[in-house]
């Protein structure tokens, strides 16, 4: 098997592989930068909580209308925004910290979702919602993913400065502007959007993987913010492409394959990453004169 067969042929020969390729690259472009900001804002686990919040919404949409893109997206968006905005609002209006508020809200959302699914009484197959179908992206789904990615990048471009300042020195932002709270809420909205876009391809729970793993990996390679974002996007898109190829050649499910490739990149970076990786730290290095 030559390089062409290994890397190019699957995409050249099959339409569904080309669609999946566009899907994962769009997801990587949107989720990479969002993931970096989540990590820097110490919200790495908040994405996971929000994914749990989206799951019941999507499931309810699925129960109501079957495998309907619109119903599932709407359900996921409603559940996600309710939890993100609710937790954000409680954290800003009361003495409660956002992580605790988020935990409270997503657990309620999850329980409510399970309750609604049980009431319906049907033993439906929710595997689609859980693990996604990156190899079966139809036109509307692909447009949704690319749309989310576009909105995400444009919004980040506009809100970059307040997002960064709110993270590095929130006291300063409060002293010069009232933009802090709205910016934060818009950012939480972006997280939800990206997760909802991602769940059609990877499932609600794995969608977080393409957001957080590339960001965590990038931290071992880049020390400046721009480089972090570029590295995270590269890792996300690269994991997507390699994961699809692994899935194609080995006949394994594509969603987990993509996330496992990203996980592999993370483990490798922990070991050999030049910035704070384990091996570089163990290497004997003489200190400088000044």
């Amino acid at each position, binding site marked *: 098997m030559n390089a062409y067969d290994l890397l190019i042929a699957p995409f050249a020969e099959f339409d569904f592989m080309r669609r999946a390729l566009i899907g994962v690259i769009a997801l990587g472009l949107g989720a990479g930068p969002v993931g970096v900001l989540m990590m820097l804002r110490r919200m790495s686990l908040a994405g996971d909580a929000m994914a749990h919040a989206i799951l019941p919404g999507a499931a309810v949409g699925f129960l109501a209308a079957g495998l309907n893109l619109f119903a599932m997206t709407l359900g996921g968006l409603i559940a996600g925004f309710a939890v993100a905005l609710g937790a954000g609002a409680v954290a800003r209006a009361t003495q409660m910290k956002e992580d605790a508020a988020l935990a409270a809200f997503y657990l309620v959302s999850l329980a409510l979702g399970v309750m609604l699914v049980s009431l319906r009484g049907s033993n439906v197959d929710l595997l689609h919602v859980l693990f996604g179908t990156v190899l079966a992206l139809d036109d509307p789904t692909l447009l949704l993913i690319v749309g989310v990615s576009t909105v995400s990048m444009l919004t980040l471009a506009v809100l970059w*400065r307040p997002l960064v300042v709110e993270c590095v*020195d929130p006291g*300063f932002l*409060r002293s010069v*502007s009232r933009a802090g709270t709205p910016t934060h809420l818009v950012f939480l909205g972006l997280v939800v959007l990206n997760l909802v876009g991602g769940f059609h391809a990877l499932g609600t729970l794995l969608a977080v993987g393409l957001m957080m793993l590339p960001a965590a990996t990038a931290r071992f390679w880049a020390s*400046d913010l721009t480089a972090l974002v570029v590295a995270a996007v590269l890792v996300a898109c690269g994991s997507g492409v390699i994961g699809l190829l692994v899935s194609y050649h080995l006949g394994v499910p594509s969603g987990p394959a993509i996330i496992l490739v990203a996980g592999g990149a993370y483990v490798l970076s922990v070991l050999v990453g030049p910035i704070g990786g384990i091996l570089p730290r163990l290497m004997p290095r003489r200190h400088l004169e000044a």
Partner: protein
Amino acid sequence: MGAEAKSAEVKSAEVKSAEVLAFRDVTLGYDRHPAVHHLTGTVNAGELIAICGPNGAGKSTLLKGVMGLLSPLAGSIVRPDDGRARIAYLPQAAEVDRSFPINVYDIVALGLWRRTGLFGGVSHADRARIAEAIAAVGLDGFERRPIGTLSGGQMQRALFARLLLQNAEIILLDEPFTALDAATVRDLVALVERWHGEGRTVLAVLHDLELVRAHFPRTLLLARSPVEWGETRTVLTSTNLTRARHMCEAWDEGAHACAPARTERAA
């Protein structure tokens, strides 16, 4: 006091009439418990005021109130209408996330917020201003250094450079010289005196009374309630300091609701 400082005194005396801040029987606090209780007084343009008192005396709370980050429980604080644009505020250093990947140049450049706002760009002239501010605090050569690699003193110098760029009429400093070495304190005090010389109003929370006596003409001694406010010489007396030291720090859960202030109800 040098000739330069003298001329600054004269300059600030000329604008004495302009009142920039007024506290009208203001009470600030958290969850009904007062941290600053019944403070009344005015700050004139160009004044250089030290705010002193024991830990928990309400000094930081007072600055937050002036900044508008905390609404009074009672009474009022009169400040310029466009407060955010005219007041600069340096909170205690601990609030900056030093692990964030941002360099000295970018953090100093934030001082231009009034000009750039959320979206505006940095012009050629702005770049010169940023370089000037960085040089003024003695950080040339550190522009590209991530803030995580700075010492405590260098970080505080960077934050002062940002204040320089903010070009505010009223500057609030919360313990700006805590945990700094003598040389850094000397350089930063010189900047504060420069601001005073330019006719700006400066309120600084400080613990070093020698420093206050040497450089700050006026002092507000707080111990949850104001102990005394006026010329430093007459405020920082042993009697007043003893009174401040005996401030009761504990909240009294059984305390009665404070009687409504007589004078300010109508306002």
